């Protein structure tokens, strides 16, 4: 198997545990969007045009409340601000790619594609075919999101809530973050971000998440700087 397809399938495989959680999430979105008054074609298209789970849920809710369009657009922007962090985080590994690749991978850069890719890159460093990993993870998620949206639109939410499949997502994130916690700065970054996320949870538009991430990043960086002034990379 070529290096390209090896990386591509590794990315797609890394996405599988996340899909357990994403699939019901997509179905719920599809069902809710119809209930909120969106047409089936608009509900389905949003999954490829916006392609961002939480922003789509919030948009659905705002459409339902007859919120003015510009307010919805602004809300989507703020809710998705965290993607700039992901973009910055992966940038060093994608720096040598053509603009065409960067456009494609930028489009596919969701929370669920970012998480396994970032962990993979931290482990492997910069490799010539690493971008195929993100492509594999991103396309696996994209395909899943389109299909689950469609099923939600036509079947409603067929999966009972008592199955708690939504919990598969935080579990996968746990599985990814624990092996990264190899030193004190990383542990401190994780715990401080987690605690701030709890305290700031009530902030609107996922701003609590962004604040928490920034605090965690700062704590980790400062601690690492103290340990070795020259920095270790």
């Amino acid at each position, binding site marked *: 198997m070529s290096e390209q397809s090896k990386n591509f399938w590794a990315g797609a495989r*890394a996405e599988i*545990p996340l899909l*357990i959680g994403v699939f019901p999430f997509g179905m719920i979105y599809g069902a809710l969007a119809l209930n909120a008054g969106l047409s089936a074609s608009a509900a389905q298209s949003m999954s490829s*045009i*916006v392609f961002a789970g939480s*922003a789509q849920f919030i*948009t659905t809710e705002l459409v339902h409340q007859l919120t003015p*369009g510009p307010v919805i*657009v602004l809300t989507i*922007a703020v809710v*998705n601000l965290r*993607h*700039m962090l*992901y*973009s*910055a*985080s992966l*940038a060093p590994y*994608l*720096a040598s790619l053509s603009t065409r690749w*960067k456009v494609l991978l*930028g*489009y596919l850069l969701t929370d669920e594609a970012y998480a396994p890719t*970032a*962990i993979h890159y931290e482990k492997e460093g910069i490799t010539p075919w690493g971008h195929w990993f993100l492509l594999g993870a991103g396309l696996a998620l994209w395909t899943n999101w389109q299909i689950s949206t469609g099923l939600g639109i036509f079947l409603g939410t067929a999966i009972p809530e*008592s199955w*708690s499949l939504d*919990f*598969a*997502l*935080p*579990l*996968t*994130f*746990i*599985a*990814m*973050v*624990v092996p*990264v916690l190899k030193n004190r*700065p*990383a542990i401190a*970054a*994780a715990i401080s*971000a*987690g*605690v*701030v*996320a*709890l305290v700031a*949870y009530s902030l609107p538009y996922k701003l609590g*998440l962004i604040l*928490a991430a920034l605090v*965690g*990043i700062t*704590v*980790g*960086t400062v601690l690492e700087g103290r340990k070795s002034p020259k*920095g270790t*990379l």
Partner: protein
Amino acid sequence: MNIWLVMLLGGLITFGMRFSLIYLFGRFQIPETMRRALHYVPPAVLSAIVFPELFLHDGALHLALDNYRLLAGVIAVLVAWFSKNTLITTIAGMITLFLLQFFL
């Protein structure tokens, strides 16, 4: 504003933010401190997503033995630590949650 226009603008902004720094950092040198800081994005963001899912119930702190998600999360942390395997960890956490929900 038409829903299609809302989606189009929302989608363009979302894409722009995802694409922005991948594009810019390819053209400019990333400062060393920033490069170092970026290594902490994964642990910080992932725990910022996970903590509320485990510790909060309807937005309020829920520290008790009947917080099954917290218990299942702790099991998942242990399984992740020893197995280093995402699929095994996810399945172990889901099974723990099922067992707690159905038998307690």
